[in-house]
């Protein structure tokens, strides 16, 4: 990767309950030059991190389904803080509740290219 990588230095929170997937996502984000602030495997830990104002966040990647629990409480906290986020899910768009239909979503499995494009477009949509 070159130094002109637009996502370089971006501070990200990852909420993903499947260890293997989370590991891969971390590796992908490393590759993109991002800083993974933390990885939460549960909703409660995700909420705790999202609410913690001391944890500086530029963006978040949220797995929709965490062992049967929906990630929406984390999404609400982030939205309240003004932190943009994207979803990644094995359900596709149909698995996302109406309130968050507009949130950019990545369908599993995804490549590093797809991840980068989504993050870049989300940042652009937010006005850089």
């Amino acid at each position, binding site marked *: 990767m070159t130094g002109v990588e637009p996502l370089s230095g971006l501070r990200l929170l990852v909420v993903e*309950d*499947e*260890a*293997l*997937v*989370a*590991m*891969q996502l*971390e*590796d992908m984000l490393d590759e993109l030059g991002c800083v993974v602030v933390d*990885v*939460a*495997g*549960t909703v409660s*830990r995700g909420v705790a991190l999202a609410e913690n104002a001391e944890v500086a966040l530029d963006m978040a990647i949220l797995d929709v*389904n965490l*062992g*049967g*629990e929906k990630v929406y409480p984390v999404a609400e906290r982030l939205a309240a803080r003004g932190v943009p986020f994207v979803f990644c*899910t*094995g*359900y*596709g768009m*149909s*698995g996302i509740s109406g309130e968050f239909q507009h949130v950019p979503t990545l*369908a*599993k*499995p*995804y490549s590093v290219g797809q991840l980068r494009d989504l993050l870049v477009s989300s940042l652009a949509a937010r006005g850089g």
Partner: protein
Amino acid sequence: MRGPPADKARYGRLVTVSLIAALGFVLTGAAVAAYDENQVARQRLDAATVEAGLLAESEAGPLAAGDAAAARDRLVAVTAYPELEAAGVYGPDGALLTGWSRSGARPAPAKTSERSVTGPGSFVLNRPVLQGGRRLGAVYLRTVREPAMQRLIRYGGIGLLILMAALLVGALATTNAALVSAHRRLRKAMIERGRAETALRRSQQLASQAEMESMRERGMAAFRRYAADMEFALAAGQLGGWSRDLRTNRFTASAIFRAHYGFERRGRWLGAADFLSRVHPEDRAEHVRRVETAVAEGGVLESEFRTVLPDGRVRWLLVLGRAEYGDDHRPIRLAGVSMDITVRKTSEERQRMLLDELNHRVKNTLASVQSIALQTGRTAETAEEFESAFLARINALARVHDLLTTVSWEGASLADIVAQTLAPYEGRALDGRAGYSGPDVRLGPNAAVTLAMAFHELATNAAKYGALSNDRGRIDIDWRIEHGAEGELVEINWSEHGGPPIGPPKRRGFGTQFLQRALAREFDGRVNLRFTAPGLNCRMRLPLSAKLRLAA
């Protein structure tokens, strides 16, 4: 038996009438005969008187002249009168001058009697012969009153007339009687016929009434059977029946239909509004719209909706129906059945959830495979190493999926996961060199996959470098419930003994990363890897949670 007495009286009357009629005829005949007799006698007498007058005038000359021969001639001229029996001419002295008599008959008397006699059998006429007031003599004339044959014929005629009249009257009477009788019989026959017709009509009416009654009863019986069959069929199919009169808005509902809406099966009358009030508020508008469309367009009403029962339970109902229209094409009623489709709906919902879940799992599994491939590729130094490590990891993933499938993805036990991890090494004379024990801890599907992968990494490492790489080493896997600062947790210890001496790995491989980063994060716990003298020790401290819990 009213005939004979009436007939007898009638015959009696007939005899009386006949006798009176006969007497009438006899009297009439006698009167006619007497009158006729009288008339005939007078005519004869008149005729004889004229004859006598004529003779008296014609004899005046001869008598005056005393000419006997002339007197005789004049007398003979009178004898042409057929009924004359005897005649005579007398002189002034009253002596018979000349006389004539029909043969066999009594001659004229010798002396004039100058008297006229009307006898029963004859007329005797004496007439003086006058000339200028002077009596010249007299004439005598005797005539037969009536010839026997003529009288016989006359009386016979009268009798015949009376007889004929009697016969005519009799014939008329008989005819009349016959007519009367015939008329009477006819009237009687007509009355009888009328009665018979009335009776026939009555009996026909009765028969047709009886037939109608019988048909009605058969119809009713058939209808009752049909209604009973329908009710039985509806009840057998657990179908509710309902009907709504669209003109009066009257609603009729069967016991099952009421039960479908949570009303008591029998009780007060319930209207459409009562049932609609039990339809789930979210489904009500759509249901009403479907009902209105079915009535307006004449199609089949098919509406699936939820009903909220008084105890708060929600049931799914399917209501099918159809509107009926009159000759003026206006809707008369809407009727149909209801069916409880809660079971079907639940299973449909479950199926949809399972499909979603399956899709989710497949996607996640593919993501996991992708991750394994990338991570393995990153650490493998040769293609062969990649292939064997990758396949081994995929196999581990497949095995834990098998395990989860046997428990319907409800969550596996920790002991099963450990046993499954060690299973591939059984054939290599594990010989009890591995043991495990701990309370019955259960893991959710994702947690089970992660822990199984973690154990796979540990076992692979042990087989390559650790306790399972020689003949003497052993592995003990124990777990117990601990009470830490942040609540209850499961502490799992993977301890190797007797393996070849080991040191920390030259580089952080996939296994190490997976255990320390992924596993720890997923369970929100801590994983401690120590490469000690007896062998590798891995201590996992994983807090109890929804995906890691003690079996009930």
